[in-house]
């Protein structure tokens, strides 16, 4: 995995969350600085709207500020925890606004906002992104497609099956196998 709970970066982030739970604002700012570019990129890819992505990011970090005490380092790394929080916030917005197919098609385009992105990629982040992208490329195309539609497009298994005109069982298998392979590749990389 790019970030195991016992790697130095994760350990540091765990300590930041612990300090946030105690109300440490500087720790909050530091965690934001470390994670925000990845999480904003994720929110943008899901919402395809810079303003909405910003709102999602703010909601996500508000949750982190309030619920830092509930974080359990034995269950996931801070990064994965934060990703799932931001993703859930994005899904909530997508579902409330019911943008449906039109929005999902736009999500697939995955075009970034008109911003200077070079500064967003720190060397460590760039390395982790490269590892994950390389791992994703090693997964068969059908599995990657189903996985991305489920994760970024907020499509249920049934909706993916409808969209790809493929049996539901096949879609489930593609997502499962894709994730298992991704885990395997990432473990090999680290």
């Amino acid at each position, binding site marked *: 995995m790019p970030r195991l709970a016992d790697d130095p970066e994760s350990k540091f982030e765990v300590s930041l969350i612990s300090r946030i739970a105690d109300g440490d604002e500087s720790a909050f700012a530091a965690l934001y600085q470390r994670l925000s570019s990845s999480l904003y990129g994720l929110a943008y*890819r899901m919402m395809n709207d810079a303003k909405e992505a910003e709102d999602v990011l703010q909601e996500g970090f508000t949750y982190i500020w309030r619920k830092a005490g509930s974080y359990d380092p034995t269950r996931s790394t801070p990064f994965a925890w934060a990703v799932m929080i931001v993703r859930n916030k994005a899904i909530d917005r997508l579902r409330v606004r019911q943008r449906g197919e039109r929005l999902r098609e736009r999500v697939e385009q995955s075009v970034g906002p008109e*911003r200077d992105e070079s500064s*967003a990629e720190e060397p460590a982040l760039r390395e982790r992104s490269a590892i994950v992208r390389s791992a994703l490329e090693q997964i068969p195309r059908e599995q990657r497609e189903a996985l991305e539609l489920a994760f970024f497009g907020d499509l249920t298994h049934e909706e993916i099956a409808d969209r790809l005109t493929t049996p539901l069982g096949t879609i489930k298998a593609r997502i499962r196998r894709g*994730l298992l392979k991704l885990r395997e590749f990432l473990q090999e990389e680290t």
Partner: protein
Amino acid sequence: MIDEQTQDLVLQYLLGELDAPQMENVRAQIESDPELRTFANEMEETLGSLAYAAKPVAAPPDIPQRILRAEGRSVQPAPKPPRSRIVALNLLPWALAACLAIACVILGLDRQRVRKGLSKELAARRQTNAQTSDALAQLQQRSAASEKEIASFREKSADLEKQLAALQEKDAEALKELAALKQKAAEDEQAVAALTQKDAESQKELAALKQKNLLSEIKIATLKAQVAKFQQANAVVVWDTDQRNGVLQLDKLPPPAPGKDYQLWVIDPSKPLPVSAGVLSVPSVGLIRTSFQPVQPVQSAAAFAISLEKSGGSMKPEGQIIFIGK
């Protein structure tokens, strides 16, 4: 070992696809099963890593401040570094001047040495830079070659996968054919066994028919004495209609008188005269068995006769007929 259905359920749970009761149910399962919990944690971690696939974007820097303000925290601007308090001492300017003078002397002496050292180091660094550039160019070249190779391998791999799929399909078809052939072979074996049995029965029938046919080709004629003198004697002919020859058995027939011979005749209705089957040698009274064959081809042996002829026999019956029968 977690079955695939449960794995799918956990993934749907992590992706937020389930409704509230289902979510609660899966959460309880995960909490109660350590193996399932490990799986769920690993999958959550893997899903989390997917965020790296999204292109990172520089986020607005003031969001933490906005959040903290909204949460009712008094956000303090970043503290500036404290200014150092310099104690004004009367001797300080003189001391500084002295220090500066000493430093200038030392620096002047050291300057020459440092310049030489720096020149050397600069040359060495330039050389190192040139070497590094070369190495970098080589690495880039290798990297490009590797990428090409990887692309080629991928293409080959895809081809091989296609070939494998085709072979698997062929294999499945071959297996089907093999099964069909085995089935047919079993049926053929059964048919062969049935035919073999039938053949054996036919062979038996044929043997029986041949036996019957053989018997039908044998004709037995008991000749009757035509003269009282030979009433005690017996004469029997066994005639093979297929081979057109026969065996004559005589018993108690006295030897012929001197200058005479017994002669056997075959009576064929298609011929105007009986056909000679040879002169019989009867040296004494007793059982005599002799085989014979007519001197001319016989179509049908209707009857047999024995006559008493002159010594050496005749071309046609001239003497007395002493036996006849059919």
